[in-house]
């Protein structure tokens, strides 16, 4: 009998702090068990630059600029199941706390009127830099998202429970103690 095909998983961080990825590492030695059943595609763990066809995509962080949109779409186009992981991905999180302000006012304050700016500083306009969106969006406002794993970050145990449920074909269920928004 042939070896069971491994689940192909991609992960990325958009407007996030990589805290959720650190928490993925917090599942500790169970990572080895995980690697028995999954293989990683694009992810900070593999350094693969673009996402190929995957069973599962895990997105940390919200959508705050044009590049985030491109990456998110790449994941959505390639992943059968897309998971939002962490507060920023789920509701915009810390970056979205700028949303009640006008982007114009923010850029002006940060690059033009704040004290301590170097002389001649201007709003960066290098074409290499992705432009910021008017507002920061949780990923479900931009693409269809199949599952959500909230937390800032979700604990290693929550991630483990979530992934093992999903891999086993169960709808993930966290329950008291594992479900957290903070």
């Amino acid at each position, binding site marked *: 009998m042939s070896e069971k095909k491994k689940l192909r998983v991609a992960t990325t961080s958009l407007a996030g702090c990589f805290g959720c990825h650190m928490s993925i590492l917090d599942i500790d030695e169970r990572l080895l068990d995980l690697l028995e059943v999954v293989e990683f595609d694009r992810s900070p763990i593999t350094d693969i630059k673009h996402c190929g066809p995957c069973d599962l995509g895990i997105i940390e962080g919200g959508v705050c600029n044009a*590049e985030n949109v491109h990456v998110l*779409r790449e994941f959505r186009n390639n992943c059968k199941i897309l998971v939002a992981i962490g507060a920023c991905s789920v509701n915009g999180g810390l970056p979205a706390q700028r949303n009640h302000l006008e982007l114009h006012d923010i850029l*002006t304050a940060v690059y033009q009127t704040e004290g301590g700016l170097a002389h001649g500083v201007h*709003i960066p306009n290098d074409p290499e830099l992705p*432009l*910021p969106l008017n507002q920061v969006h949780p990923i479900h406002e931009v*693409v269809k998202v199949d599952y959500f794993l909230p937390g800032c970050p979700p604990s290693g145990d929550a991630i483990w429970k979530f992934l093992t449920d999903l891999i086993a074909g169960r709808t993930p269920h966290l329950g008291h103690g594992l479900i957290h928004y903070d």
Partner: protein
Amino acid sequence: MNDQNTLSTLQAVLSRHGNDGTRLMQILRETQEALGWLSPATLTAVAKTIGWPRAKVEGTAAFYSFFHTRPRGKYCVLWSDNITDRMLGNRDLMQAMCEKLWLEPGRLSEDGLVSVNTTSCTGMCDQGPALLVNYRAITRMDMARVEQMVELIRSETPLDQWPAEWFRVEDNVRRADILLSGNFVPGSALRAAVARATADGTTASNDRSVKESLPRGLVGPTAMLDEMRLSNLRGRGGAGFSTRLKWEACRNAPLKDGQTRIVVCNADEGEPGTFKDRVLLSAHADLVFEGMTVAAYAIGATKGFVYLRGEYRYLLEPLNEVLARRRQANLLGKNILGLSGADFDIEIHLGAGAYVCGEESALIESLEGKPGRPRIRPPFPVTNGYLDQPTIVNNVETFASTAMIALNGGEWFSKIGTKQSTGTKILSVSGDVLRPGLYEYPFGVTIQQVLDDAGAKGCVQGVQVSGPSGITLSADELERRIAFEDTPTAGAMMVFDCSRDMFEVAHNFAHFFAHESCGFCTPCRVGTQIVARLMDKLATNHGSQYDISELFKMHRLMQGASHCGLGNTACNSIFDTLNKFKPAYERRLKSLDFEPAFDLDAALSEARQMTGRDDAGAHLSNELSHVETSR
């Protein structure tokens, strides 16, 4: 308040109302009419004088659309924005007006002269496009009037020097039956009601109720209730509750010391597309007031209110004149018709732009000077209504019918209409018909008959019966009848020919409910906003099937979980149009998959502007399949 004139104006208003907080709505309206707006200092002074916490006064001021807690333009123009006004081109006219005045809708001009915005239906659908200028109704707007109005505003011409013709409101009665035929003699119904009672029962009609162990023989009011029972009259506000049962419950409710029973006439005709009460009050006020007085006689009430929607402000003075005339004729006041103890008087209270006040308990809150928030029920108004007193709230048309029942008897009335829906119904017909206006029919008339009489133009696509909270009928259903057992209605009938977009009908209604939700309960407060946003998304061709299923989900949640009828019915027209006119939605869909609600490329606009960039990387395609891989 350092300005002495302002202070004395305010004190005059307050003392006219006895410094009574329950009269706050009238105090705020009159103050605003005199001072232009309700400044923080004004609210503080009002609160101090009436002895209410300031936050409570501000709570009321902030609730109603027609109260201004920020400086208002010298001219405040509000375009009626019902779907019928839209169909008559109000949006283009408003746009033209804004351009000529160098204004953005909703913004006060730099010089504080004028603001232009929209408001919910002003009840002039048969003579639109309509608007309010400083809360005075103007009908039949067109481009020539827009141009002239802009000039009058620019030259700061006072409103009473504007062409009188603009303020003319037509009755447009196209078919009259028992109510609108207009040969009612004031006092005749009351005399008939009194005559029906035996002699020893005609005194002290205000003093008893069944539960208070009636002295024997006080059968005057009972005789009237018998007629009401025979008539089988059902409430004309739409719900169709038995008028007699409501009255009996109120009559039987115990009174505490110092209390009286209250008769309230609900003239908060806010359901878009309805304008029958306006005509009843402008042309047949005696009929309505007499019906109220008959009701007071039957239940033993001494105090009556007409709660008149703010949009009908222009009716206040004429109605007060009718009341004065009736007092002179001894049809109101003390010992009416010479009956000892038959005391009853009526006062007009004006609303201030809040559809939800059409709900009877919200209306009572408003009468008490509070925000119009529907109460938790039970208890019902019939036992705990205005200032906790037993109160009946009936529609204008219900009272008009009551007068006719008193005059001609319940049996006579019950022979009109159908068995379960007796009497007549006044329909306010607007939209795509040659002769918009009022049509009074015996209950049981088919929709088709009404359309034929009104001259429906060309092919009829749909008919909205009973306003946005009512039912949307398709062309297949025109043989249905106006009756509580078939198609119940509060009276509105808006007709849409085949050139109309039925999606836009539901879209307009979605915004109406989002604007009018009182905000008390979660499902309606947030739900109406979510629904309006989903409809906007579909309207701008960003929607998908996913959004349509979201609309169904919101309908299921709001219908049932909401606190009052507003939330419960807010998705009716969406549900109906989705079921009966689904292609109107489907042809707007962008795709069958999920689509974001916002334009991604437009979401980079500010950053593009700030950086001066316009390269390929400074744009986003709105197609999900478009993936940038060249980075």
